């Protein structure tokens, strides 16, 4: 079954400052993954790890420095030159802040009708109303509730549903949700998350779910990629990546999530770095500065990808020859 989306060695550099002081930061560094049809794929990591930049590259809002994005077999749905902004056909997006998704000075339904008109779905009004009403029902709303009102008159959850309905109108094959529920009230968060599952099962839509909240990712996603400072450090099925994390960073991340259970409180304390941007410019493995199991090789070069029982890990700990060759006793095994 070939992939819906193939990302190969994607890289994106950003340059800051004027022509004299070029400070270059690699936000996305050699990222490769596939997304299968009807699959929810999580891109997880802390802020500044490159997950949102990766999403903007897939959507076509940013031009990759190198690497390829192949969507349903054709190379990045060649963007139309006249359009200042390319966007890949069949890919839509849901944004983090529901109140920023729609122009506060325009009625929300304008976006729905414009999507219908611009995608040439139908010309006459009544058919458009019916189509929009149908799509809104799919997300649990009705056209009467929505028409004639401004974004400030809805709750965050309702706006997020309307945004999903709008993107479904174009019958997309891939939906990119950038932290869709982080700004939505906790009590109705699950209704939105369940909606993504419903889209996958009923409409066969794939979703790239971008988040820093691993608990929700565990609940709704099939596969997950953990990102750190532009690198995918661990990728695989959500069950074994989150329940038996391999990469030291994934372990640290997994342990640091405060679980809603008083019995599972943190035991030991964690050491924090206070110079973040140094980590971007570091030569070898970007996590070397904080990794409890750091070795000299980690500081020198970037670890390649190893496959350990179905999970891709970028860490020298899983490099068989290196490990057997050095026989370093002081490297504790992962029994604990």
């Amino acid at each position, binding site marked *: 079954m070939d992939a819906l989306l193939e990302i190969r060695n994607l890289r994106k550099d950003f340059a800051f*400052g*004027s022509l*004299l*002081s070029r*400070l270059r930061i690699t936000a996305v560094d050699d990222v490769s993954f596939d997304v299968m049809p009807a699959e929810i794929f999580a891109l997880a990591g802390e802020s500044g790890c490159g997950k949102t930049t990766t999403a903007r590259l897939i959507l076509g809002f940013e031009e990759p420095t190198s690497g390829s994005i192949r969507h349903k077999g054709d190379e990045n749905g060649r963007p139309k030159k006249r359009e200042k902004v390319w966007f890949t056909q069949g890919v839509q997006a849901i944004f983090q802040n529901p109140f920023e998704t729609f122009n506060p000075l325009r009625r929300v339904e304008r976006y729905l009708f414009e999507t219908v008109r611009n995608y040439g779905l139908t010309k006459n009004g009544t058919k458009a109303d019916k189509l929009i009403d149908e799509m809104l029902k799919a997300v649990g709303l009705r056209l009467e509730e929505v028409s004639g009102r401004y974004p400030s008159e809805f709750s965050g959850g309702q706006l997020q549903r309307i945004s999903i309905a709008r993107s479904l109108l174009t019958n997309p094959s891939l939906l990119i949700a950038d932290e869709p529920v982080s700004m939505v009230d906790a009590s109705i968060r699950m209704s939105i998350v369940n909606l993504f599952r419903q889209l996958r099962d009923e409409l066969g839509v794939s979703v790239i779910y971008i988040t820093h909240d691993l608990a929700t990712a565990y609940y709704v996603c099939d596969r997950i990629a953990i990102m750190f400072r532009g690198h995918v450090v661990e990728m695989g099925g959500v069950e074994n990546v989150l329940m038996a994390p391999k990469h030291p960073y994934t372990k640290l991340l997994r342990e640091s999530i405060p679980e809603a259970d008083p019995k599972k409180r943190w035991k030991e304390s964690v050491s924090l770095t206070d110079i973040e941007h140094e980590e971007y410019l570091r030569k070898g493995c970007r996590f070397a500065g904080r990794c409890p199991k750091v070795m000299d090789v980690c500081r020198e070069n970037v670890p390649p990808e190893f496959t350990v029982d179905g999970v891709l890990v970028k860490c020298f700990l899983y490099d068989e020859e290196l490990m057997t060759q050095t026989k370093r006793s002081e490297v504790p095994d992962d029994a604990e």
Partner: protein
Amino acid sequence: MAFVKRYLIPRLISFVLVIFLGVTAVFFIPRFTPSDPVQRTIAQLQSQGSYLDPGSMDSMIEDLREMYGLEGSMLQQYGAFWRRVFTGDFGVSFFQFPTPVIELIRTSLPWTAGLLLWATLLSWTLGNLIGGLAGYFSRNRWSRALDTVAMIIRPMPYYIFALMLLILFAYVVRLFPIAGGTDIGRRAALSWAFVSDVLRHAFLPALSMVVLGTAITFQTMKLIVQNVNAEDFVQYAKLGGVKERRIVSRYVIRNAMLPQITNLALALGQILSGALITEIVFSYPGLGTLLFNAIVTGDYNLIMGITAMSILAITTAILVIDLVYPLFDPRVRLM
């Protein structure tokens, strides 16, 4: 380090570019406009009835062209013009014939400088002080009253306000002289008589500039202080029980002054043009009146001289302010 590259060098580049652009504009404007300055001067001479026999007409045109630096190809003229700007020799003034332009500027510069410097300094400090307090205590009656007064004064251009003062104090109340820099026939001397006479004459123009400048600075500062007052670090200091005197001085005023420094740089252009016009209204013997006479008599060299010098002066002042700013703002200094 980053500060030099990202803040200092771009500022220096733009300083040089702006001067280049300004001087080039001053050079090209008379040459591109439809009427030729030489013909205009001759037409003006004829309109004043002085008889010009045709024979001497050609040599007259020759002299005028030479005086206005109009010989040679456009490039040579351009080069000559730059030499003038750098050496400060803008050729000879046409109507006060033998005296070079730079001499005229040098005599009237102190008058303008005195008026301009005092008015700007006074209005800037006064405006910031009252504006700051009004902004911090924006709830009470006094700051609202002051705000309405500022709202009335601020929109008026310099000369309208100057005219109003002139009518009120020089005519209705007859407290101050209507025009001039000193009483007629007063010789410049370091005596108190001379100084008091100068002050009496300079009072109304200075007053109009100070009052208007203060109104403008007051309003901008009040707005900035109100914004800074709502900033998190001021609210947090209040929550922390920091003494009010310390909050006002080290938190509010200290942060509010930063945008005011850049505002001063931006306003310099307006303040100069305001001063020039005010001088004309009061016929105060500064650069403004000099410019006015130059325009009336169509004295090109003098006009070019004053314009070029003003551009140099303002751009330099702005550069100085830009260089001073990082001393007050660590976020720029330690980029």
